[in-house]
């Protein structure tokens, strides 16, 4: 077994190439910049195109054009760039344009601390676009996860025709670590469904279904629009057509959550507390859990790698046998609201920090003991 020394951003680049990404556009921003430079090294020799946009709005716009022309596309940024992506994210949601968005989060708000990590965009990624329809958010804990989840992100984005976020952070994206690439899970690559025979209606699909794709610039004229549209791609104000459309956009993502609920559940039979966490904090939690167990304190751990849609079944089943939950996140309390909603009325405790350093294992140990004695 030989190890490779790489950071999360390098793993994202490798995975994107593996998943068939052939278009990337981005604007330099710490801590996501090395994805732009990595893609610029990787794609052109394979015939793929990389553009440095004049701003983030342009970068995601280039990606949407290229994706509708048939290429698998990706962009990468951090919180300030996600803010600028917002309007085009809602376009991709409403007009079913496959796109992978890597958010290498840094400490915010606003310009924040460019070289410090945090998970402050967890609700923002879900809700930070007009209309409130669902997107998919996957959260890696390490470089190996960056590889596997970026491949899943492309697969889901192609399969569901929806923007998919990879919620990385400075602590994952820019920390180099040894990875056993031979052992890393490499999901088989999925491509979008292409329209076969017969007249083409660009947005025709069953309820909860996904329309078949034909590319802009291909042999059959295709309509695409950011406006509310019916199956034919023309603007509509017909309430019945609009209802069917928005219900489908919601249902197609949320109804298949069981097929992409990624998580690690380390349950201990006699545990009364379940620690729930994600991102780099999961690694502090793993260390904390082994220390607690070594002290003879049973505790269970759930690391969520799919954050949106909320994998409610997973949460409920992991919470079933415990008396309380402790949600730990690198922000001042975001995903805890989802967890407590799902496991209600079970008591849900929270511990979070967003002060420019990782949460330490000892802090989680302390919080578990505190929760158990409260």
């Amino acid at each position, binding site marked *: 077994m030989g*190890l490779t020394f790489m950071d999360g951003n390098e793993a994202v680049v490798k995975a994107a190439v593996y998943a068939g990404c052939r*278009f990337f556009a981005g604007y330099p921003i710490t801590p996501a910049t090395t994805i732009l430079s990595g893609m610029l090294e990787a794609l052109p020799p394979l015939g793929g195109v990389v553009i440095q946009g004049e701003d983030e709005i*342009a970068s995601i*716009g280039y990606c949407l*054009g290229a994706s509708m022309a048939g290429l698998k596309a990706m962009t990468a940024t951090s919180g300030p760039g996600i803010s600028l992506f917002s309007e085009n994210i809602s376009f991709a949601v409403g007009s079913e344009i496959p796109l992978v968005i890597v958010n290498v989060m840094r400490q915010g708000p606003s310009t924040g601390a460019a070289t410090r990590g945090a998970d402050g965009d967890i609700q923002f990624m879900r809700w930070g676009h007009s209309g409130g329809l669902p997107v998919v958010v996957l959260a890696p804990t390490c470089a190996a996860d960056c590889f596997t989840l970026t491949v899943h992100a492309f697969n889901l984005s192609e399969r569901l025709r929806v923007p998919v976020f990879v919620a990385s952070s400075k602590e994952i994206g820019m920390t180099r670590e040894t990875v056993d690439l031979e052992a890393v899970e490499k999901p088989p690559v999925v491509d979008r469904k292409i329209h076969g025979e017969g007249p083409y209606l660009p947005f025709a699909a069953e309820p909860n279904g996904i329309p078949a794709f034909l590319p802009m610039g*291909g042999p059959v004229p295709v309509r695409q629009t950011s406006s509310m549209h019916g199956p034919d791609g023309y603007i509509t104000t017909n309430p019945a057509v609009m209802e069917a459309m928005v219900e489908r956009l919601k249902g197609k993502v949320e109804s298949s959550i069981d097929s992409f609920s990624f998580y690690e559940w380390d349950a201990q039979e006699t545990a009364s507390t379940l620690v729930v966490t994600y991102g780099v904090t999961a*690694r502090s939690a793993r260390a904390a859990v082994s220390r607690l167990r070594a002290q003879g304190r049973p505790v269970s751990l759930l690391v969520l790698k799919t954050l949106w849609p909320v994998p409610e079944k997973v949460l409920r089943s992991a919470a079933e046998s415990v008396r309380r939950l402790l949600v730990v996140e690198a922000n001042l309390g975001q995903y805890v609201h989802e967890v407590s909603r799902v496991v209600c009325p079970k008591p849900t405790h929270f511990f979070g920090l967003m002060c420019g350093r990782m949460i330490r294992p000892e802090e989680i140990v302390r919080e578990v003991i505190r929760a158990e004695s409260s």
Partner: protein
Amino acid sequence: MPSLLNPSRPPVFCPGCAHERSLHALDKAFQQLKWEPHEVVVVSDIGCSGLFDVFFATHAFHGLHGRALTYAAGIKLARPHAKVVVVMGDGGVGIGGAHLLAACRRNLDLTLLILNNFNFGMTGGQYSCTTPQGARVASGFLNTLEPPLDVCRTAAAAGAPFVVRRSVYSADLSAKFAEALSYPGFAVVDVWGGCPGRFMKANPLSPKDLDVLVEKAGLWDGPVSGNERAEYGAEYARRLGAAAPLWDWKGIEPRVRANLCGRHGAVFLGAAGERVLSAGHLWAMTGVWAGLHVTQKNDYNITVMRGPSIAEVLLSSEPIDYPGIEEPDAVVVLARDGVERMGDVWRELSPRTLVIQSADVPVPEHGGRTVVVDFKKAAVGRKDRAVASLGILARLSGIFQIEDLIESAMSSLPPSQRDATAEVLRKGADVPLG
């Protein structure tokens, strides 16, 4: 050639709208060029000009306000043979100014028609970036305070190789459209026309008036002297390969030995320009060559040539969960900048931590075991201190043999740096310690 207009969606512009004239002139130009519906992609913006894509039976892409040029560029780069036409109004020029400048500078083979009617028609006739100062619009006095933007001069200044300005009543409008469409590069057509629903109600604008206005602003006829150059897409294509991805999942097979059971965390505290991060990387890579699990976190200012430079390297015989260093096994003190950045960690040090301290760098009081190194006396320059400290760290921690460090340097560094680095490592290993 038959018309490319959409038989199922006839135009619905206001009576007398300039846009409808442009629509038919564009259709005529398509016919003149014998383009087929599936060859053409019409990308439209927001506003009344944004209805254009619906009226053509071509590929149609209608996106967000001001961003049409970005979608068009993505489509064109992905499908170089598509004939991509962008239609926007003066509103799109204003909100998407950065994209217009970028498109002019880039010279990708797109055609941009700007349907310039001097106001935001769809929202009620507010002023746009091209509204004349003397016009009466729905923005009160605001337009009287700002001179209008000359789109053609702006485009030319930004590098557009082909710029046309015409009144929508101009007899050669469709001929000019056809020239722009067939121009192999970024072509801009600034079409001036009236908005009968809004602008023209308070600002009468006859065809003759428009002619006068256009003449005053200046007719632009096509190629811009000095701006004509190679097209972006063709230049990009010359730089593209056609290789299939090569997958090598094999990592580094261990070839040196490490004397480590458990974890060892080292923190290198230096300043920019001292090769601190490179030294940290070399220490980390030696761990990788020894088959250890390794993490490396760096910290430095955005002013990369000034300020602290810190590397944290964690070596472990077991897989690493938490990638932070809770209690360092070694702190290597190379410069004051790094010492200050480390802040309160000093207070927490116990004799478990080995502190390798440059003789000329003061540190706060702490409980670690200190070994003082006089780099000056040992004739180790500032830029070599960090690398030399690896020799000392190897010797004092016993984790690596100096020969293994050198072997790792030989394997990980570019040839030009190898011999000098080996010499510095040896120097470090032999330096007298206080």
